[in-house]
């Protein structure tokens, strides 16, 4: 039971992070590899806001979301939009996003230095509860709640709102969307902003969960995020959700039964299995995408 809760908790963060990848992939068919850098940025900025500006942790989160959103807009404008019509567009966009990610991490290093940063003492509640024989901290509950809320909110946005309709339209057929009056450029930029905002919040939550943040955290989670979206299905929101939770649970149980050093291997085992057996993932549609 304890493991279950731990797994869900970390899994929800994985899911929140992976959703960023999947949103962009769904709309543009591109992988945005600057996303992990935004994840790290969210964590570090969050810590700074709490530490230096004295903001409460819970207020810092929306601020982090805003910062993430702005970063997303920049990445879209610089690394993806100019490359849209090139013949090697997929490669080029991927590498451009890698470049931007690298630049962002360098900037983070400039501002925050290379050392691990932590939240100041007392920044968040320490108390824990007993639930069905397992111990869970208030923090974990809140993280889980926030992640779930954000994901539910996003799902509602995509399924019910005008913007969500436009996003789905562009994801399915940008030309048809344009014909009907959708401002494709604006929708794409907004999608990027939302994806980055979620990624940044995921970073802040992650940092809260382990009470530390360092420059390399993006890289560490990057592959797991990729594994999640492949397992869940590229471009599928519920897939990212389920995939993330699945990964979190699988990791936690693997640590318990196989040993912690092999924990990261779980992601790739799942990834490989799925890619070979069912490349479109659990929820994805079988579409062939050429590079």
């Amino acid at each position, binding site marked *: 039971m304890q493991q279950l809760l731990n797994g869900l908790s970390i899994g929800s963060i994985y899911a929140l992070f992976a959703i960023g990848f999947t949103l962009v992939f769904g709309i543009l068919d591109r992988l945005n590899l600057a996303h992990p850098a935004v994840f790290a940025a969210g964590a570090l900025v969050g810590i700074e806001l709490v530490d230096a500006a004295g903001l409460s942790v819970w207020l810092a989160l929306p601020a982090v979301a805003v910062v993430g959103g702005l970063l997303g807009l920049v990445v879209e404008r610089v690394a993806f939009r100019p490359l849209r019509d090139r013949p090697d567009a997929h490669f080029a966009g991927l590498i451009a996003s890698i470049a931007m990610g690298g630049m962002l991490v360098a900037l983070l290093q400039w501002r925050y230095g290379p050392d691990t940063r932590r939240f100041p003492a007392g920044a968040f509640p320490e108390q824990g509860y007993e639930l069905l024989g397992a111990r869970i901290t208030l923090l974990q509950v809140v993280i889980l709640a926030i992640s779930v809320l954000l994901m539910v909110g996003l799902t509602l946005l995509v399924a019910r709102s005008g913007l969500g309709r*436009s996003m*789905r339209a562009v994801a399915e057929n940008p*030309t*048809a969307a*344009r*014909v*009907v*009056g959708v401002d494709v450029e604006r929708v794409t930029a907004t999608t990027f902003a939302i994806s980055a905002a979620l990624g940044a919040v995921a970073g802040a939550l992650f940092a809260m969960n382990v009470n530390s943040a360092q420059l390399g955290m993006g890289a560490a989670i990057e592959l797991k995020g990729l594994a999640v979206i492949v397992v869940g299905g590229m471009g599928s929101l519920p897939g990212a959700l389920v995939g993330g939770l699945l990964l979190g649970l699988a990791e936690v149980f693997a640590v318990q039964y196989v040993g912690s050093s092999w924990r990261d291997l779980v992601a790739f085992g799942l990834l490989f299995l799925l890619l070979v057996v069912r490349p479109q993932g659990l929820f994805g549609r079988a579409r062939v995408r050429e590079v």
Partner: protein
Amino acid sequence: MSAALLSVTDLQVSYGRVRAVRGVSLDVPAGGLVTLVGANGAGKSSVINAVSGVLRPSGGRVLLDGRDVTGIRAHRLVRAGLVQVPEGRQVLATLTVAENLLVGGRRDPARLAEVYDRFPVLAERRHLPAGSLSGGEQQMLAIGRALVTRPRIVLLDEPSMGLAPKVVDEVFAVVEEIRAEGVAVLLVEQNARRALRAADHGYVLAGGQVVQEGPAAALLADEGVAAAYLGVSDARPPSPGRPGRTSGGP
């Protein structure tokens, strides 16, 4: 000063080095039905896409009610009252019928209700994915989607393509109704006879240029139109005979 709602002057469209449209001019009066016919590859769809803002023209001017809208992007033209029903319908298959009608453009509940009245089958299938509709129903959906935006002019690109003739009858009946309500229509069609029967005025396109224009009835009776479609005129010398020709049936 022309009374034309839509006035296109010397339109040019290029794809890289290919000049698909080489100077096309046409007018659509308010409430009128004008058709653009011509063989495949003549440039009809390029004209429509350039006028509706999906493509950027490389030359020429487009005036909507006197206002220069050349090169303005599609989503803004939709708000100005010009909307396209694209070739092949292009409905968004994974979205429901209702969502297709609501996507983009202006969402006017009264107008939506009107569309449901006009196309009862859409009302029935409101919450089903658009991809589950038949070809004809999808065409109705595409037209309904355009009507929801309260257009002053609708650009119809090959509405009969891939549809059985009976369904084509229904589509053209709808086009008539729309026209009767005062919405101008610019119709691009491969099925020239059908289009010319429905229209007031017609333009015949070949090789990216207008080769003939006039009242639709006159074009309908004209031999030259048939020639433009079935290709070579009788003035061409026949090709030299080839030895060993087999001319059996399939």
